[in-house]
């Protein structure tokens, strides 16, 4: 993670109003954002759409990326933009799975996940993924963002920046989020029960 923007070819044609720097950011971070969105959304189509929406938000919020010199090549600014993008992407993806949730859940179980089928994938794996996503969809947004981003490889400092929390609290928040996830996941998948019951330290904000 924490990809650094490369000085990419500025291929934008003159009639477009999109600033060149925006393109560099797009190209540098697109794949990370896509992967992040995919983890939650579960289909390529939805992930692409969420990634596009994420960058649209960035595009619309030039204050995030335009107020410093050397956008895209300055590591400090780039990290800030990345943090912002990750927060927005996970927020959108979370909203997506929640919003789609209730009424479509059954369809997802049967067909929705199928659209993404990798022939090598066994049905069981797909079920597991679906169960994981469903468990995530029931957790508070902040916990889901934390789990996703941590798993995407962000350091505690990066997590703190992306989620706007104190760096010293990341360990606690992460422990809580993991406990909350375990609890929900095990409840819906008794077969996957991990050793030992979740402790009461698992709750809280």
């Amino acid at each position: 993670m924490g990809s650094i923007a490369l000085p990419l070819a500025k291929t934008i044609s003159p009639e477009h109003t999109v600033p060149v720097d925006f393109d560099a950011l797009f190209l540098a971070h697109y794949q990370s954002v896509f992967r992040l969105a995919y983890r939650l959304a579960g289909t390529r189509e939805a992930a692409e759409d969420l990634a596009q929406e994420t960058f649209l938000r960035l595009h619309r919020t030039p204050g995030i990326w335009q107020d410093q010199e050397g956008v895209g090549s300055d590591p400090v600014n780039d990290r800030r933009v990345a943090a912002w993008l990750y927060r927005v992407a996970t927020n959108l993806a979370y909203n997506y799975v929640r919003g789609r949730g209730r009424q479509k859940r059954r369809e997802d179980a049967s067909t929705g996940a199928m659209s993404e089928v990798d022939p090598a994938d066994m049905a069981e794996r797909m079920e597991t993924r679906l169960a994981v996503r469903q468990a995530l969809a029931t957790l508070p947004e902040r916990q889901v963002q934390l789990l996703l981003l941590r798993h995407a490889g962000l350091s505690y400092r990066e997590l703190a920046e992306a989620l706007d929390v104190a760096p010293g609290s990341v360990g606690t928040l992460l422990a809580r989020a993991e406990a909350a996830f375990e609890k929900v996941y095990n409840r819906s998948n008794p077969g996957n029960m991990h050793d030992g019951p979740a402790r009461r330290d698992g709750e809280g904000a």
Partner: protein
Amino acid sequence: MNEHYDMGLLRACLDGELLPAEMAQVTAHLEVCAHCRETLAQLRGRAHMVSAAMGGLEFRGSVPQPQQALARFREEIPTRERHSFRWDDLQRRIHMTGRNLFSPRWRPLTAAVSALLIVAILFTIAPVREAAADFLSLFRIRKFAVIPLDQAQMDRLESLAQQAEGAFGEPQIVREEGPTQVVAGASEAAALAGYPVRTPGRLPEGTRLEKIAVRSGPAMHFEFDRQAVATVLQAAGASTDGLPQADSIAFDVDVANAVLQQYQVAHPQSSFSRLEFMQVPSPQVDLPAGIDPIALAKTGFLFLGMPAEDAERMANSIDWTSTLVIPLPADAGKAREVSVDGVTGLLVEDARNPFRSSAVLWERDGVLYFMSGSNMDQRVLLDAADSLQ
């Protein structure tokens, strides 16, 4: 407990995220403390389990090429911006509130039940896909009115929406909403929709009709459990005055065929100028007996923090059976009445930059019109609206 480390620190220790000095302290402590060792083991097991679960979610195909995604992004900007009306905050908030309050199918309706919920529900309209269609899927609309809201009021509504989450169940779908059918032109659209289709007579030279389509609206039957509605209102600290006494509040909504037109507008100042135009016969809503919209509206205004006198006045000044009330965050959008198509309509614009996004809404002869323009001079929009034929 004091002599044990808290789990946050131990969790950070697992990830190697402690400073070297802290790390040394914790390590030394673990040597002598079985309790902390146990906690650490538990955290580790859980972290592995979560990590395994999350690992399964990873994308394993070939990731889309950024260059292609960027090309698509540029292409889609106008459409996406239109859907969100470009008012980011408004869009986000509406979306969140709407999602919390109702499943998508609830959206068109709650409006009719209580003015309070009308206010909340309308938050769902603009932003979501097919914005315009949803926007207008409400009772018999003859007029539009805007209620400007400040941040605190928006927050109150959001919290109400959160409390209401899932409280009302699902509506019965009498007739499913149809797919959007793209047609060749206005006459084909008219044949499909069942009524005459109007098109703008004046648009800048070089403007291109991108798409014309017809979409059939849903018919729905709603039954609110009075108790559920009352509980939500009470939990929010709002009054239940104005709710009918019957246990169940039932009503029907029927939305007719909508005709949508999209134009790529030739504009000297932008290559992203788009005009979107929708017309739909005003949807029908049969309201339940015994509902008192004025009392409900007053409740809503009080809930938003309006002084009693103002709430009373506002509630009485609006004809709730025919007015679509649009709550508009004051910092996101501005609205004013304009003369359009021979009637009085409402012009809503991006508060910061009307050029970016404006929309005009009006009703004429039982038909609702909604025209929005992005990246264009407002005069182009109004001129197009005024030249329908």
